């Protein structure tokens, strides 16, 4: 998948786990949690959805890569290049 496709996957996941949020103005450089109501359980939902969709296992020590949209896409791009 291309970075743009991965970004759309994350948007789709966020729409599912935070259905009250308007994601149209999401800033890719700013932490998700500063722009929307996301707690640790929601964050685990992102990890879980990626696991279900692409069988990707994200180890806990890598969770800090999933802070912003940009850092998330950067982290996932090499891992999902064949997805």
């Amino acid at each position, binding site marked *: 998948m291309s970075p743009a496709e991965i970004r759309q996957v994350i948007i789709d996941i966020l729409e599912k786990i*935070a*259905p*009250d949020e308007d994601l149209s103005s999401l800033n890719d450089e700013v932490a998700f949690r500063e722009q929307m109501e996301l707690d640790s*359980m929601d964050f*685990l*939902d992102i990890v*879980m959805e990626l696991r279900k969709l692409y069988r990707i296992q994200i180890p806990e020590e890598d969770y800090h890569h999933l802070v912003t949209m940009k850092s998330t896409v950067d982290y996932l791009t090499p891992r999902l290049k064949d997805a």
Partner: protein
Amino acid sequence: MTQGISHSERIVLTGVGLTAPNGNNLAEFRQNLLNGVSGVVPYQTRYMGDVLAGVCNFDTLKYQKKKDLRRGTRVGSVSVYCANEAILDSGLDWEAVNRDRVGVYLGITEHGNVETENEVYEISQFQYDTSVWTHHHNPRTVANNPAGEVTINMGITGPHLTIGAACAAGNAGFIQAAQMLKLREVDLAIAGGVSESIHTFGIFASFQSQGALARHDDPTKASRPFDRDRNGIVVAEGGGICTVERLDDALARGAKIYAEIIGYAMNSDAKDFVLPDSNRQEQCIRLALDRAGITPDDVDIVSSHATATEQGDIEESKALRNVFGKSPNVAINNTKSFIGHAMGAAGALELLGNIPSFEDDTVHATINVDHLDPECALDQLVLNHPRKKANIRCILNNSFGMLGINSVLIVKKFDE
């Protein structure tokens, strides 16, 4: 019956919030009970396909966000809706209420089956890889979930718990509230019974295996307690929740008082996992009457538990005949004939749907009795059409459940 008891020991219901398969507030529910409107509809459940059920259609987004609904459970949503509606109806200045002194006590028949079934199904789509089992499973399935969701939604910091009491649970929620208020553990209780049971296929499948799942070409005719041609239970969801207060508090704030709890009792058959026992039911009814300080003749309406199983209906009829056989003025009705069996919510909804009779002088019927079972032929049954009855002052509500648990609650029209 309440003479000599101080106002601080008398317990009253002051606000009502409910969702039933045929109504999302007390006025709508009552109107449909008087008009013979059923809430039973065709329904699809996992693995089994077409069944019949009592399905609620309350506005889930009235007091919760979409995310709250996703995070929580269906019964949590039912509870949040009913609790907020009860507070609104109570006239309490909620912002001024000390939330440390509010208790939430909700009766449930079962909890956790829905989420567990959902997750087992989900991992089955992933070759039973448990690494995709949701981290939401535990908070959704802990037994206090519905009451806990109410506290989170409403900022209540007093005690909360659910009371697991099979299908006797609706009464048990009110009884717990009355006891906690009398002990002065809390100053306000939000109490009743709730159920999400139609969202688990297991309850349908289990009743079917037991030969006790109702079927009928016309869904509205499927739930037929006391009828010779009944063939089992219609599973329903719902919730009935009240604000419960000590009388002196209710009077001090000029509250509308729906009813006073004057007696209650719970006991156990100690006999069988599923079969009821009329002897213990009778004992439970008599114990509640004794505690209320009244006789069978003082009761105006008996809200029966009957679920439309042969043995259940007949056993309860025996108990009622023994207690009320010489009380011709008692009227006996049944709410499950309209909405099916709302499990943990059943006792609460069945009580609440009768309370407006204090004002409208009418006893709603038990519907769908085309051929009365001779073994259930109680003279006082109100069959198929509501009956006018002057000066209704006292309602006795039966709720019985599996493992032989019986509960009886008696309420009275409030007067000084």
